[in-house]
């Protein structure tokens, strides 16, 4: 049975024959057009975006920005600007209560590395070093142009490979080799599963590829910004475009050294975010401006700033090497990956963690090895964007799959079908694959593309023939101490509840549970049914304990399953 309802202008093809026993019979919303609950405000122009709040006496804040990729700040002369019409206040780094932050400190991950307004050095073009608060935007612009900064340009590096060469200029003193320190131990995030080197020797073909992706700007139509104003009783109200309201609240409280109970954040109506509105730059600045002037202050990027200093999805560089058998089975895959974090950490170190959890892509490969680096360069700091940490490597993986298909003379869809995850397979990060659907997707793609599949491939199903041998952990995993770093505390990722356990020993392969039993209580790992409460999380030795862990689902996609 195939239904093709129209949603929006798009034909959506629902294939209800797949996984039919995993859904209740009647779906009330899925597959049916629905109205957004906020749509009336949108079509009448009444939805309250942050800039749609009027304040009598609103002041405007704009930043003085570095024209250099890297420079020392010798002197900032604000005297002429102070005397200009409409100027209320000039803000410098010394006015910021805690002028050093990393977004990830709220996740207990990473070291504070980024000034709100830099006082001594800039590390990317457009980095702010001062802010003007004036009565009008035009007056703020004129005063910004009148602030004289004496710069001493420094050597800079704009490319990840150049940045990790010995002798490259250090972007941040705390990471002298321009590489983030993972878990206080290594200069990269490791994934070790089996023994790729041995597998490469056994493979019929070894296929290598190099893939690169440029930074991508989220480019929301509404530029990032915030308006802050004094409320009574010592509180500050902040209207913001943030897409992570409580994250921005926490960041503002930290930077302003103020209990969050004194901050009243109003958001939720966001003019497009796509990941680019989590960096919480505008809220603390606007509130600081309101504190320093006692008046409502707006800090808003114009389009040029949004494009130049708005943090993009960072550039990535990938080197992928596969060992593949003549029949198309991929038996080993090795990655070397570089995320260009730009000048500061923001969320890139975490993007790497997410990325490595995704390797080697949706394919069952018995030997996987990855070294993934978070590299600092003098480019605009990078941050989240849709498919955070995943999009770049997926591009590399899927381009590489095509290359492998060519090497073994197979149709690329067939190659994917052959290697796709099936329910019950062991993934490289030692968890069991479930709710897989790549096989079915490939079959539909083949049908739509007019590719005739061999009968054995057309007959494959994600729910069949997984597990068993495919669920077995490698007999031996090769580990190493390469990339050891000294001098960092072994904190960072999930420090608060890091279990003392060696992931490379001991965990027996979990038993493959039957999928979606016909009746009765759902088995462990079965997908939750809508009409029943979800079962408690399984006590699987392969999954980390959950209690107490900070989950940050808008960024990480962490979910209880």
């Amino acid at each position, binding site marked *: 049975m195939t239904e093709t309802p129209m949603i929006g202008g798009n034909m959506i093809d629902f294939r209800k024959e797949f996984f039919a026993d995993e859904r209740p019979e009647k779906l009330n919303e899925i597959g049916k057009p629905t109205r957004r609950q906020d749509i009336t405000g949108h079509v009448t122009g009444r939805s309250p975006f942050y800039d749609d709040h009027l304040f009598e006496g609103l002041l405007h804040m704009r930043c003085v920005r570095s024209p250099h990729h890297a420079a020392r700040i010798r002197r900032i002369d604000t005297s002429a600007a102070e005397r200009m*019409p409409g100027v209320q206040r000039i803000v410098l780094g010394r006015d910021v209560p805690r002028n050093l932050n990393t977004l990830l400190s709220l996740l207990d991950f990473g070291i504070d590395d980024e000034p709100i307004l830099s006082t001594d050095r800039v590390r990317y073009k457009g980095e702010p070093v001062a802010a003007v608060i004036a009565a009008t935007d*035009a007056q703020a*612009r*004129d005063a910004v142009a009148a602030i004289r900064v004496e710069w001493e340009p420094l050597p800079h590096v704009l490319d990840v490979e150049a940045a990790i060469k010995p002798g490259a200029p250090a972007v941040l003193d705390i990471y002298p080799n321009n590489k983030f320190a993972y878990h206080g131990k290594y200069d990269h995030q490791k994934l070790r599963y089996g023994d790729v080197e041995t597998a490469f020797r056994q493979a019929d073909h070894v296929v290598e590829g190099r893939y690169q992706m440029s930074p991508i700007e989220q480019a929301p139509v509404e530029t990032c910004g915030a308006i802050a104003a004094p409320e009574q009783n010592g509180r500050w109200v902040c209207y913001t475009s943030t897409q992570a309201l409580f994250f921005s609240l926490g960041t503002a409280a930290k930077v302003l050294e103020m209990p969050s109970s004194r901050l009243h954040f109003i958001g939720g109506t966001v003019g497009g975010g796509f990941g680019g509105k989590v960096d919480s730059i505008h809220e603390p600045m606007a509130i600081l401006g309101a504190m320093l002037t006692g008046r409502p202050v707006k800090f808003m990027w*114009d389009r*040029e700033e949004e494009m130049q200093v708005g943090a993009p999805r960072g550039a990535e560089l990938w080197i992928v090497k596969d060992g593949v058998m003549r029949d198309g089975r991929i038996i080993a895959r090795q990655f070397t990956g570089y995320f260009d974090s730009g000048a500061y950490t923001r969320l890139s170190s975490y993007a790497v963690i997410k990325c490595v959890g995704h390797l080697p892509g949706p394919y069952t490969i018995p030997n996987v090895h990855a070294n993934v680096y978070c590299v600092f360069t003098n480019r605009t700091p990078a941050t989240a964007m849709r498919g955070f940490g995943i999009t770049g490597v997926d591009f590399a993986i899927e381009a590489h799959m095509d290359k492998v298909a060519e090497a073994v003379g197979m149709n690329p869809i067939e190659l994917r079908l052959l290697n796709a995850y099936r329910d019950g397979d062991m993934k490289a990060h030692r968890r069991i694959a479930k709710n897989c659907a790549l096989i079915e997707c490939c079959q539909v793609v083949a049908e739509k593309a007019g590719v005739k599949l061999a009968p054995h491939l057309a007959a494959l199903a994600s729910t069949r023939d997984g597990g068993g041998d495919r669920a077995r952990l490698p007999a031996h995993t090769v580990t190493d101490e390469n990339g050891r770093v000294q001098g960092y505390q072994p904190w960072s990722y999930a420090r608060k509840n890091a279990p003392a356990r060696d992931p490379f020993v001991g965990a027996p392969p979990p038993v493959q549970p039957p999928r979606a039993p016909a009746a009765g209580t759902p088995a462990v790992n079965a997908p939750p049914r809508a009409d029943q409460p979800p079962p408690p999380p399984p006590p699987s030795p392969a999954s980390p304990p959950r209690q107490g862990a900070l989950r940050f689902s808008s960024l990480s996609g962490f979910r209880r399953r």
Partner: protein
Amino acid sequence: MAVTVETHGSVAEAARALAQGGVYLGGGTGIMRGVNAGAVQGRVVRSSDPALRVIRSTADGFSLGAGVTMAQVLGERDLAFLHAAARSVGGPQVRAMGTIGGNLFAPHPYGDFATALLALGARALMASGSPRNLDDLLRDRDRTGLVAAVEVPRPRDPRAFGFVKVQRVKPRGVAVLSIAAHLPREGGRLRGVRVAFGAMGPAPLRASAVERVLEGATLDAATIARAAQVAAEGLTPPTDPVATGWYRASVVGVHLKRLLERMV
């Protein structure tokens, strides 16, 4: 500094005001961005003279007030030969606002309409009353007075005029380049050929090498091939986010060939 805006009732007054410094604002689609960003400071001069918005037919063509918008051009059936060029400028809002006077001064990569005017042999009528041919005006746009109107000769055979804009984003996109060709014929031979390129230099310019090939020739496959071959001769097109100079120089011949083939 800040901006002061003056509105003058006649073109002549606006010209006199401009002579003392300042910048003229037509439709504003080019200038207002700078006003918003604080890059334009000081005097901004406008004119409310209704003559600026008038389209008149003349003995051999049309006189278009400098304040005539692209949308106005598109609303005139008699100006059909200019419609492709007018439609190629921006989206509907930009065409409702942007003027032909402003298009003569639009910086690279803009000036698609001016490219068409150049190929048609149009003349600018300055506020002082003196005419100026567009070749000169476009070559030296910085020191020019106020343009009051543009006089466009009507092509005797509308099929002798062709225009194409090459863009990556459709339907609205910045020019990789644009080409306008006026190829009148006399007894099967091309006489009085004018070909202009947009976005192939700092301002729209004549494709002299192409014109030399076409003038006096018959428009056949061999001529077209020769014209395409010399298309980029003597040009150093600019590099910008839309295309590199190398790319522009490499593809201009291909697009010229396609346009000429359409006009055979």
